[in-house]
């Protein structure tokens, strides 16, 4: 696919030169980035930079294989105006990126070469990696909020790393947002200035806390930081650099424009790949060293493993199935072929179970595990080689279900033949329970999709996602409606350093006694929704510790645990024991998952 790129080389490094020409691996940061983008189909690039830097940027990109146009621009408003022009001229997919980032090619490929993502961003959930990036919030695969230097996102759950892919269908939306943002940047609204100041204070306190931790080994509580703490000279310089970079970060602004403009924006996560935004020669050298220490292929293989998977799959299958996936990739096998092989092995397992002999049951158990391993391989192979297809995803899911229900039938036949024990009724109960359990997941998800579609966005001149009125002495007050809108949101966990309102007066803090008409907190916690919220809080708290997190997942009897349960009970006991175990554990899982979701629904 042919793509064009829009790069911003507008950030100054410590020495006053553009950060985009900092030396990285024998070339410049922007030259290296454009080279990487070139291997990912980018044929044309527009680079926006300051008039005095045009020569340096042109020199840096002189040897580039791409067709490069360097655009001189005097400031943020002009940058955004130029971006609108470039976007309007783009006929194909447009990659928008900050020109000074240093990342693995595979990290960029994860976003650009993934056919499932039309419009999307490179993101990280890591606080450390994203510490100088702006927060985003996504829900069920879609960005519902994004921040910039001048825009705020509450309950952020990831950070935008300055690379964005825009589908041709969304290019006009990008241009419209850029045009509006350019007008606003020319004469910034008061709320923008306040938000920038708030972020500056927050960064200052964060640097102070980090310095205290370095000096004393004790991490201070977030609230312990003084209002405007003094920093060491080095930190003060870093803060000044980051603050300057944030002010001209047009990429983040464009993302806010897209998200608030209603575009469907997906996220591709960094996983373990390297990413940095060095703003000094020393930082660029450090980034180069750090990057060399990461084995890109090893990370690519680890990243191919689904991160939110069951206990059995994560610890007993994925650790070795990923090597089978790499073996398969080197031989050019396709994920769909692997899925089909897995289905055949599953059918063989069902046939072995159907013999009803002890040897047959043991063989079936082993074959079922082999089939399950191949099931993990197909997904890992698809992620590793980025050969995703809609049909492949459908086949994968349908074959999973097909294998399982074929095995139930095999076990029921085997029980009649080998043990003279008719367990068909149990088999029917098992298929009914498992299908209904899946339906709970599907229906609950479908209901939540609907809730997200109703989200409405604030206009771009407003810094906050929720309504904030700026009064005469420029102290923002949360409007009553906004506070009420925010309250359900606060029932969930608030990411500590993403969304704390610090410049707001205490009376306007959403967790304080905000609007006089509201009931006091103790009374609010009462009643059914309050109790349900407590229950949801308790369940959510289980996510905090690895042991309880895994216990939670094991209780819900995911596919890996189910197949292991079938194999063990069938090989060691009888099909009747297998079905009884599936029905018993499955019922507990059903009660747990339905109960948890009913609580969430009550609390909503």
């Amino acid at each position, binding site marked *: 696919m042919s793509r064009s790129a829009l790069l911003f080389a507008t950030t100054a490094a410590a020495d006053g030169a553009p950060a985009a020409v900092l030396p990285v691996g024998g070339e410049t940061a922007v030259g290296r980035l454009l080279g990487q983008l070139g291997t990912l189909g980018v044929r044309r690039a527009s680079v926006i930079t300051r008039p005095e830097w045009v020569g340096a940027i042109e020199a840096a990109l002189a040897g580039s294989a791409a067709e490069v146009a360097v655009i001189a621009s005097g400031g943020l408003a002009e940058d955004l105006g130029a971006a609108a022009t470039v976007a309007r001229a783009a006929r194909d997919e447009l990659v928008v990126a900050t020109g000074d980032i240093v990342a693995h090619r595979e990290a960029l490929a994860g976003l650009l070469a993934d056919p499932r993502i039309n419009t999307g961003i490179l993101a990280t959930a890591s606080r450390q990696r994203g510490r100088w990036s702006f927060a985003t919030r996504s829900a069920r695969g879609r960005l519902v909020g994004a921040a910039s230097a001048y825009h705020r996102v509450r309950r952020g759950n990831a950070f935008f790393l300055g690379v964005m892919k825009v589908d041709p269908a969304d290019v006009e939306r990008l241009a419209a947002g850029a045009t509006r943002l350019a007008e606003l940047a020319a004469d910034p609204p008061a709320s923008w200035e306040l938000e920038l100041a708030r972020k500056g204070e927050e960064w200052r306190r964060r640097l102070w806390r980090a310095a205290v931790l370095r000096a004393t080994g004790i991490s201070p509580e977030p609230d312990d930081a003084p209002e405007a703490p003094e920093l060491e000279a080095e930190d003060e310089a870093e803060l000044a650099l980051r603050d300057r970079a944030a002010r001209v970060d047009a990429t983040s602004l464009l993302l806010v424009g897209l998200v608030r403009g209603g575009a469907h924006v997906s996220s591709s996560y960094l996983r373990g790949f390297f990413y940095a935004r060095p703003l000094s020669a020393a930082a660029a050298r450090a980034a180069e060293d750090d990057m060399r220490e990461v084995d890109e292929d090893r990370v690519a293989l680890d990243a191919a493993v689904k991160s939110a998977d069951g206990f059995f799959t994560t610890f007993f299958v994925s650790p070795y199935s990923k090597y089978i996936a790499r073996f398969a990739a080197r031989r050019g096998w396709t994920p769909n072929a692997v899925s089909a092989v897995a289905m055949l092995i599953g059918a063989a397992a069902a046939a072995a179970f159907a013999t009803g002999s002890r040897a047959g049951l043991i063989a079936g158990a082993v074959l079922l595990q082999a089939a399950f391993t191949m099931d993990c391989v197909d997904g890992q192979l698809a992620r590793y080689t980025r050969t995703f297809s809609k*049909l492949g995803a459908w086949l994968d899911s349908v074959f999973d279900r097909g294998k399982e229900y074929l095995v139930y039938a095999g076990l029921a036949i085997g029980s009649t033949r080998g043990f003279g024990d008719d367990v068909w009724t149990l088999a029917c109960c098992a298929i009914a329970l498992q*299908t209904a359990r899946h*339906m709970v997941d599907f229906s609950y998800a479908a209901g939540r999709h609907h809730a997200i579609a109703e989200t409405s966005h604030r206009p771009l001149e407003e810094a906050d996602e929720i309504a904030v009125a700026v009064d005469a002495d420029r102290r923002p007050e949360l409007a009553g409606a906004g506070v009420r809108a925010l309250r359900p949101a606060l029932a969930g966990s608030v990411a500590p350093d993403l969304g704390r309102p610090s410049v707001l007066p205490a009376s306007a803090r959403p967790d304080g006694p905000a609007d006089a008409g509201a009931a006091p907190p103790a009374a609010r916690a009462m009643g059914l929704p309050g109790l349900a919220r407590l229950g949801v809080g308790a369940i959510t708290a289980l996510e905090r510790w690895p042991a309880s997190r895994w216990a939670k997942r094991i209780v819900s009897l995911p596919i890996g645990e189910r197949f292991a349960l079938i194999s063990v009970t069938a090989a060691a006991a009888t099909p009747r024991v297998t079905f009884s175990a599936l029905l018993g554990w499955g019922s507990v899982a059903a009660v747990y998952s339905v109960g948890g979701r009913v609580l969430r629904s009550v609390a909503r």
Partner: protein
Amino acid sequence: MTALAVYRDDGPLATWLGRTAGRALPAGEVPLTLAGALAPVAVLVAPARSVSVALAGLAALALVLLGGAASGRARPGRFAWTVTPLLRLLEYTLLLKITVLAEPGAVPLCYALLAALAFHHYDAVYRLRHQRVAPPAWTRAVGGGWEGRILLAAVLGLAGVLDVGLVVGAVVLGTVYVAESVRSWLHFGRAARPNLYEDEDVQDA
């Protein structure tokens, strides 16, 4: 049509009940369905000897009348998600109960029918997820809907020909559902790319 409406798998009878009786009744989808579930649940948990095919058929009829009428009251709501799993569980277990009562020897055939239905119900979810299109409405009409299937099973059970019905149902529906799904994939082009994707398919466990 919303995803939840597709997941319900209503046939012509439930749709008609929803359009007529559903409008007139004072309750919403969730309470109506729960009320309809009472009789089937009683039949399902009662000892086998105390229940007859006719009684199971009457319980199925109660579910069809109330659950079918509820289809006309389907609205997005915080508990709307509870309806489809409940309908699935009741449909499958009622088919099983009627088979056990009417012709215990035909339970393997019932399993075959349930497998064919399960294919259809998963297929609807996965196609909506990956193609962004639900199976065409005629598949729901041909399948008779959940309400048509349980009523027909009760009638065939009373007539003593349930085994024939289960075989025909499993073969015909299985063939129709699989063939229609394969056909849809042969016609699925790149133009229908959905504009959303989830980084992790966590529901697929």
